[in-house]
């Protein structure tokens, strides 16, 4: 009994609050990346191993635009649009011809794209990490620490982007097309919906979202050609834990896992805190393989 009381007293509540904020911030970035991934999987059964590289490409384009124009927001917009176009081009040239074949072929194709993009970035920008300057500095006092405003802003922006996309799905005509195609590709075609183009558009949207998170997250970490790897791994874990194809599920899972990791880093080093995600993944696969945040299928 005494040991428990001691433990409760020893929990650093100020750190807990800071890590909650960190968890939410990271969670929202992860949600932005994972949403695109789960959307792409849900509608066309493609496991996009190049998703992390689209994130990385977005960050690099952000670097370039920022350097030439000096505007962070312009960098964000242009990076999103350019990578969305690149994503559409990739889908049309490499993934469309593979529709209906063994899923292994699309995995190999996207893996190949990821290698190409990584090495292109290495060749173009070199191995030294670049920096994106955050659009505004400024911090507020949280206990004895200074917490950057910028972090809260990116969490808010990510939430806004995801929220905007959710509204688009729910109300727009194109949103109906996407949802119909996800549910029944064949009948969507029979209703005159140009399914191949819906696939391309969704891939482009997913790519754009990944790029946006690349730019938003850029100031927090260095921008280098390998930055996609860590994130795509986390994104896959989130997609599985949240339920493949479920947008709400991946958002909930992103925040859940990020919070757990942040809390864990109070007691262990951040590198070790990553273990938490894998534990959650294994438990999910063992006990609720369709996803923690989706209703169990009958």
């Amino acid at each position, binding site marked *: 009994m005494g040991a428990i009381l001691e433990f409760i007293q020893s929990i650093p509540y100020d750190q807990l609050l800071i890590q909650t904020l960190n968890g939410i911030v990271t969670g929202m970035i992860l949600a932005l990346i994972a949403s695109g991934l789960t959307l792409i999987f849900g509608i066309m059964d493609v496991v996009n191993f190049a998703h992390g590289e689209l994130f990385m490409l977005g960050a690099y384009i952000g670097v370039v635009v920022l350097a030439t124009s000096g505007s962070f927001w312009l960098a964000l917009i242009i990076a999103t649009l350019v990578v969305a176009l690149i994503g559409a081009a990739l889908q049309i040239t490499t993934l469309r011809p593979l529709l209906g074949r063994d899923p292994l072929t699309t995995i190999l194709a996207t893996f190949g794209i990821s290698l190409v993009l990584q090495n292109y970035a290495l060749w173009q920008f070199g191995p030294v990490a670049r920096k994106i300057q955050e659009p505004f500095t400024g911090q507020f006092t949280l206990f004895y620490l200074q917490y950057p405003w910028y972090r809260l802003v990116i969490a808010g922006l990510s939430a806004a982007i995801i929220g905007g996309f959710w509204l688009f799905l729910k109300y727009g005509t194109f949103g*109906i*097309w996407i949802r*119909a195609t996800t*549910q029944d590709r064949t009948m969507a075609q029979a*209703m*005159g*919906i140009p*399914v191949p183009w819906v696939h391309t558009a969704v891939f482009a949207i997913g790519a754009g979202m990944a790029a946006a998170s690349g730019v938003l997250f850029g100031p927090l970490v260095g921008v280098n050609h390998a930055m996609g790897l860590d994130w795509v791994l986390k994104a896959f874990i989130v997609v599985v834990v949240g339920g493949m194809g479920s947008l709400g599920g991946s958002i909930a899972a992103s925040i859940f896992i990020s919070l757990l990791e942040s809390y864990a880093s109070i007691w262990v080093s951040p590198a070790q805190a990553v273990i938490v995600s894998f534990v959650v993944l294994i438990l999910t696969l063992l006990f609720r393989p369709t996803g923690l945040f989706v209703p169990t299928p009958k």
Partner: protein
Amino acid sequence: MSVPETPTEPLVSVESLHTYYGKSHILNGVSLHVGRGEVVGLLGRNGVGKSTTLKSIMGLVRPRQGRVLLGGNSVAGLPAHKLARLGIGYVPEDRRIFRLLTVMENLRTGLDRRGVADARKQELLDKVYAYFPVLAERRNQAGGTLSGGEQQMLAIARAMMLEPKIILLDEPTEGLMPRMVWQIREIIEALHHEGVAILLVEQNVPLTLEASQRVYFMEKGAIRHHAAASTLKATDAVVQQYLGV
């Protein structure tokens, strides 16, 4: 057998279709045609290839040999969504409405097309709600919550949103109560009055003979008999042969 020839060039015509599922030779030289505004029945037991014939017309299954013609022009290789835009509506066996979309959203998948004025869209919607009042009541309910008969109505209504020239109806009365079967019969009649052609695949012989002008009988992947519906009764030997035991 003397069969009344369709007065004008057929709307949809299928010539010597051979379709395979893997190695399974499902359609073995199917030829049939449907004239503008005609109701044509396609009768046969399970597994003879009736649904596959409809899917081949709709571009959902590629035949290995043979031609599909729409208004005299070959539609070979066109994807299903183009055929839908060209005026072919498809109501599959087991309905396949979008379960997670509302009734209204289901209708919108066909309604939201380019080149259709908003006023026209509203007209279409009103017309369909007049045909199917229960859909109007349930317009904001998810498709998956509808009963079997209501889903069948939604499936037909959804196809009507495309303003099709021909509707391919696959066993619309299967699993429905007699009262609903009667409603389907009335809808087919109403569509016929509007000049929409219908290719009706069914196992319900009396309904088909009543609703159709001409009837094809299919067996083992080929058309075996073809007659004017008015010359047939459900008790005829030929009906027994292709549908009975």
